[in-house]
């Protein structure tokens, strides 16, 4: 049953691609070289981006390269950028480990005529041409709070488990969720904010610490891939399933077991595969100079998007729950 559904989806997707191939409004006559540099290689969310990017690259006459450092280090990314600059790539797309450290290398690339498109985590605005933001910050903050509020009630004690104190995107989400929480659930309190350094084991330890030090906590918001898994594992380990609810922003593969066990009722994210496709469309359009810093453009069958001073918002949050999570395999 499930397999036939998957097959049907696959067929639909293939049909969609063949339709997309007729996207006549994009000039694909010249073959270009585009690199995608994730924060590190081997992480499944970034693999999902790659999957989408490969599919779109085939349609857009792009010679695609997926490369990055083996650990999440900005310095490793700079090494990769330097090599891409020397090899004269046409477009570099990246999600940054650190907005400032990457800037000099990317500015050097732009000076050499290379287009730079950031996605997921931005770099300094003057070091890239376009930024594809996953979702708007306020919407994602709202989705995070709602994902636990429904189950903990409006006056719950909430803990936050993030990645690192200086993670740009996590801090933006935390600010957004605090704003939304204060406005919508004034009795909800955040009792503690801890950091798991984006490491599964450190996140688990931090999760256990939160639960043991704050027995009143009924919800953990962990807006980081590893943190959500760590927090969910901590809840399960202490036998608090059904008493403490976890949410965050992990990919479906990492949290599937916790969603099915009921530790995570809802968890917002976005469709990483489609985001990867959009990255390639923007790369192609940026190379063609067929896209304005502010204005609208069409990215094949993904639809129409709006750029606002170089920032393109990809989608509204996509909420995973026990019913729909098996439709997403990344």
């Amino acid at each position: 049953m499930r397999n036939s559904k998957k097959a049907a989806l696959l067929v639909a997707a293939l049909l969609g691609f063949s339709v997309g191939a007729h996207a006549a409004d994009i000039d694909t006559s010249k073959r270009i070289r585009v690199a995608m540099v994730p924060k590190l290689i081997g992480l499944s969310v970034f693999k999902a981006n790659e999957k989408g990017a490969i599919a779109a690259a085939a349609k857009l006459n792009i010679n695609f390269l997926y490369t990055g450092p083996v650990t999440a280090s900005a310095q490793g990314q700079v090494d990769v950028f330097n090599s891409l600059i020397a090899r004269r790539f046409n477009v570099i797309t990246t999600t940054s480990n650190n907005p400032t450290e990457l800037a000099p290398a990317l500015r050097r690339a732009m000076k050499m005529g290379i287009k730079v498109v950031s996605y997921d985590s931005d770099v300094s605005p003057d070091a890239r041409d376009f930024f594809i933001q996953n979702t708007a910050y306020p919407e994602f903050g709202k989705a995070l709070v709602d994902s636990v509020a429904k189950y903990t009630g409006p006056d719950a004690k909430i803990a936050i488990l993030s990645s690192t104190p200086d993670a740009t995107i996590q801090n933006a989400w935390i600010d957004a969720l605090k704003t939304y929480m204060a406005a919508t659930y004034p009795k909800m309190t955040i009792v503690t904010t801890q950091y798991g350094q984006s490491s599964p084991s450190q996140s688990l330890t931090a999760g256990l610490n939160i639960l043991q030090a704050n027995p009143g906590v009924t919800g953990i918001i962990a807006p980081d891939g590893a943190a959500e898994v760590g927090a969910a594992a901590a809840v399960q380990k202490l036998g608090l399933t059904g008493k403490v609810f976890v949410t965050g922003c992990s990919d479906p593969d990492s949290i599937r077991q916790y969603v099915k066990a009921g530790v995570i009722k809802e968890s917002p994210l976005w469709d990483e595969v489609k985001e990867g496709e959009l990255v390639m469309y923007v790369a192609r359009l940026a190379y063609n100079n067929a896209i304005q810093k502010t204005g609208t453009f069409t990215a094949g069958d993904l639809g129409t998007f709006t750029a606002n001073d170089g920032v393109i918002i990809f989608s509204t949050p996509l909420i995973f729950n026990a019913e729909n999570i098996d439709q997403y395999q990344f």
Partner: protein
Amino acid sequence: MKTVDNTVTARRTGSRFPLDGWERSLLALLLIEIIGFCIGIPGFYDGIGSLLGLTQNFIPFGLVALGLSVVILTGGIDLSVGSVAGLGAMVMAELWQGLHLSIWLSALIGVGSGAVLGWINGMIITRLNTEPLIATLATSFIYGSVGTALAGENPPSGFPDSFNALGQGEIANILPYQLILFVVLAIFFSLLMSRSAYGRKIVMVGYNVEAARYSGMRVGRVVCSAYVISGATAALAGIVLASYYSAVRPDMGDILLLTTITMVVLGGVSIFGGEGSIAGVVLAVLVLGVLRQGMLIAGFSDMVTTMVTGAILLAAIAIRNLMSGRGTGLALLFLRLRRLGGGKMPKAAE
């Protein structure tokens, strides 16, 4: 052929070329590497300016290696160089941002703070009679944490362009400032180690600490000074990195440690101390640095370059041991173990 006498102080008579066999091999390797990459890797050679510009991506490793060589020559090790680099740069950045000091004055204080951190290492090692390995491992955690605490949520970034030029700029678009800094320091260190009384003391402590002590040398003070030097060069490397990235992060120096130990050992400095030369280290810095850049440009991943670095280190050590004339394989290993067990640790000054 190398013999047991140390190559730092021994000035080979009759040879006008100031490099011994090992260093000549490294020099040949470097030339082969550069020529091979220029021919074989598209994009590697793009004018002399870009070739020299490649050094900007690895000179900080070389700066750390210079100071670390001095420590390793004494028979010690400094595992805290990475966190000292991060903390030194952080001190500079915070002084500039928080107290609005001039960036160059802040940089000077940053290097000074590195020297102080190194001095703390040295005092722990000599006064508390601690293994350098353990002492500097411990302080590396402490310095790293202090750096993280100083950094806070928004580590400083966006330094003035005049300062960024140190890491990113060149004279006449050809000669990188980083390279000039490295060459000047390399010559200074080379002269210091091979031509000064101080250099001889460092090597003697590393070669035979008991002999050094009985000859009336203040061993503790000499050892301590090596860590001060290592701390200062590590902080300088951190500051150059800060300029290169125009940003600081407390974990910025973490990548420095293992690669620089590799460079020092590949350069021919014995990890047990008392043997080796700065010229060899400088060549090893260039060999490994150029290799890494070449492989990255050729499109190999970070992982492969790291693997090749490890393989080269092993090969270098093996060749060196086989050719050392002090017996091969196991015999040499036993000799080394005996030396290690024989109280190589400098004790506190009486």
